[in-house]
């Protein structure tokens, strides 16, 4: 990775990101020590384990997911294009629905790992995917998504990487007529992240929801940059983001809604809210609307503040000490963004991840399993 060309923070879309750790991570070698994946699995459906970007078939049950070439359609994204053309692919034929949520766990042991993914949901088909990111290093992922007429996809990401690490996700989605994409991302680890999504509502009555919660403390930085483009009439989109920043951390959300000239009767809603747990922390929220149609409804709300003092005193007066009272209010603040996860078991896990972060014990590799790095990749890197 000698020619690692990264965007500069002088570029508007990257002004809140700090990519300065990436060149060193790109040069570093994985140590082979990864967190034990067992605690990360949620259900009994198909599951795939990638260690440092390499598929581990011995601990996977891929179901409908294929390992191989994947078109993530990220050629023009400065990080996404680095993800390359190999990874995993999910194609669900018309009117099909895999049994159970597909779980993909990405573990890192240091260094950089790049992986592409391609998801195609056929007409009236449906899938639900949870991706969990944990461990050390830089996990760089690009995902291309296509939803045919009335296709439905739930895509849930939990970023639990260790301190000093980086998780970058670049999604590109095309959402067909009457199709629905609900993407929820939770950053509740100790590392940094950059989340990009470019979602196009390409058919009439398409529905897109992109939201999540970014939790940052210490020197952490999370940065989400989203573009939801309404290209056809009667589309609906929702963006609900909650950011929490403590210490000297920075959490940023830039969310743009574009409404093309033909996209009449668009109904778009944005809610970007942040809570500063200390005044030394930073939250950036940038809602943007670019509307070329004349008969649309675009609501946006944006607020950054501190926890409500009246509510804190109310909890204290009932006997709840200051730290748990703050955690309770912060949990409630974040809950909105996680409420859209339809499956209860998955939602509970995401809420528990957020709780762990709030109680200052984010997922870290407490149980480390060490495997010689030479054993990795013999089967996986196809």
């Amino acid at each position, binding site marked *: 990775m000698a020619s690692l060309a990264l965007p500069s923070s002088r570029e508007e879309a990257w002004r809140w990101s700090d990519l300065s750790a990436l060149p060193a991570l790109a040069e570093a070698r994985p140590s082979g020590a990864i967190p034990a994946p067992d605690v990360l699995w949620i259900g009994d459906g198909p599951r795939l384990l990638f260690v440092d970007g390499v598929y581990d078939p011995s601990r996977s049950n891929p179901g409908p997911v294929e390992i191989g070439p994947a078109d993530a359609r990220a050629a023009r994204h400065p990080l996404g294009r680095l993800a390359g053309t190999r990874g995993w692919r999910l194609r669900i034929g018309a009117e099909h629905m895999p049994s159970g949520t597909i779980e993909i766990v990405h573990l890192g042991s240091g260094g950089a790992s790049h992986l592409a993914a391609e998801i195609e949901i056929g007409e009236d088909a449906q899938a639900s995917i949870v991706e969990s990111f944990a461990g050390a290093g830089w996990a760089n992922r690009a995902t291309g998504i296509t939803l045919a007429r009335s296709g439905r996809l739930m895509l849930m990401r939990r970023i639990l990487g260790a301190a000093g690490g980086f998780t970058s996700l670049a999604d590109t989605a095309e959402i067909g007529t009457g199709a629905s994409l609900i993407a929820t991302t939770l950053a509740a680890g100790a590392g940094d992240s950059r989340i990009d999504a470019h979602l196009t509502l390409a058919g009439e009555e398409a529905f897109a929801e992109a939201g999540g919660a970014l939790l940052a403390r210490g020197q952490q930085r999370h940065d989400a940059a989203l573009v939801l483009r309404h290209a056809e009439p009667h589309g609906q989109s929702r963006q609900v983001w909650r950011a929490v920043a403590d210490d000297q951390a920075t959490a940023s959300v830039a969310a743009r809604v574009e409404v093309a000239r033909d996209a009449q009767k668009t109904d778009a809603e944005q809610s970007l809210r942040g809570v500063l747990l200390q005044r030394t922390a930073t939250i950036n929220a940038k809602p943007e609307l670019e509307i070329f149609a004349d008969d649309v409804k675009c609501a946006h709300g944006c607020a950054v503040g501190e926890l409500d003092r009246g509510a804190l005193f109310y909890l204290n*007066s*009932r*006997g*709840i000490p*200051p730290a748990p009272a703050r955690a*309770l209010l912060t*949990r*409630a603040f974040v809950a*909105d963004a996680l409420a859209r996860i339809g499956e209860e078991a998955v939602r509970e896990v995401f809420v528990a991840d957020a709780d762990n972060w709030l109680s200052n014990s984010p997922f870290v590799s407490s149980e480390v399993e060490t495997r010689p790095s030479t054993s990795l990749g013999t089967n996986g890197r196809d």
Partner: protein
Amino acid sequence: MLQITNLHAEVDGKPILKGLDLAIGAGEVHAIMGPNGAGKSTLAYTLGGRPGYEVTEGSVTFTTPFVPSEVEGRAASDAQRVSTSLDTNGVGEALQTTGGEVAVDLLALAPHERAAAGLFLGFQYPVEIPGVSNVQFLREALNAQRAVRGEPPLSGGDFLKRARAQADALGLAPDMLKRPVNVGFSGGEKKRNEMVQMGIIDPRLAILDETDSGLDIDALRHVGHGINSIMRRPDKAVLLITHYQRLLDYVKPDFVHVLAGGRIVRSGGPELALELEREGYVGVAA
């Protein structure tokens, strides 16, 4: 149980309480009445420890069996263990856990420690907390208090039983326990919810700030009944802060005080409330 001596307090640098004296004994119900701006709510918040309510002079001593272990070191210097004689009249259940009472400097305690010591503050305007269910909030509150007192946490089942019984007694629909704290509650429901909380927490001393405001007659009766059944016991006490006499029809006070200009200007029996109702604050407090 509560001894307030020469209490001075200010908000934003503005003196509100100016030398307030009040003594509340176990088994007593006191009512504080007074015109708007007399300092009634300031008294409640100051006793509860709300940030921004600064005590500049005076002392408040709270005698309680629930002395949090971490607080014991900070008990008032003249604190004395008071041997309890309450076992003899059959209400010593709570007291037996420590076997004695301690006079603590209330003002030295953080708000959550005051709660754990047995103080309950009923809010005039209960706060809405979206995203936190009543049940979750109260269980956390109760168990936090129990932890400070060295008692084991209550299990989910036991807690729910206790919560449902209280909701029933106060005419609050049981499904409101599952709803976010006070969100979408009417004024009356919020006040009933305060009483449900009081019943679950089972404090030693309740300071109820305008608990009757915003209540219709039915709700007033429920709330009055709640205060009587939860707090009318020889080992407990109540300080009712109210603007009007009507709550006192349901909760008969033993003592009535008139607060004006930041001090208690007159004290008397229940007849004083009737006199106030008849003649107004101007006549009585003059």
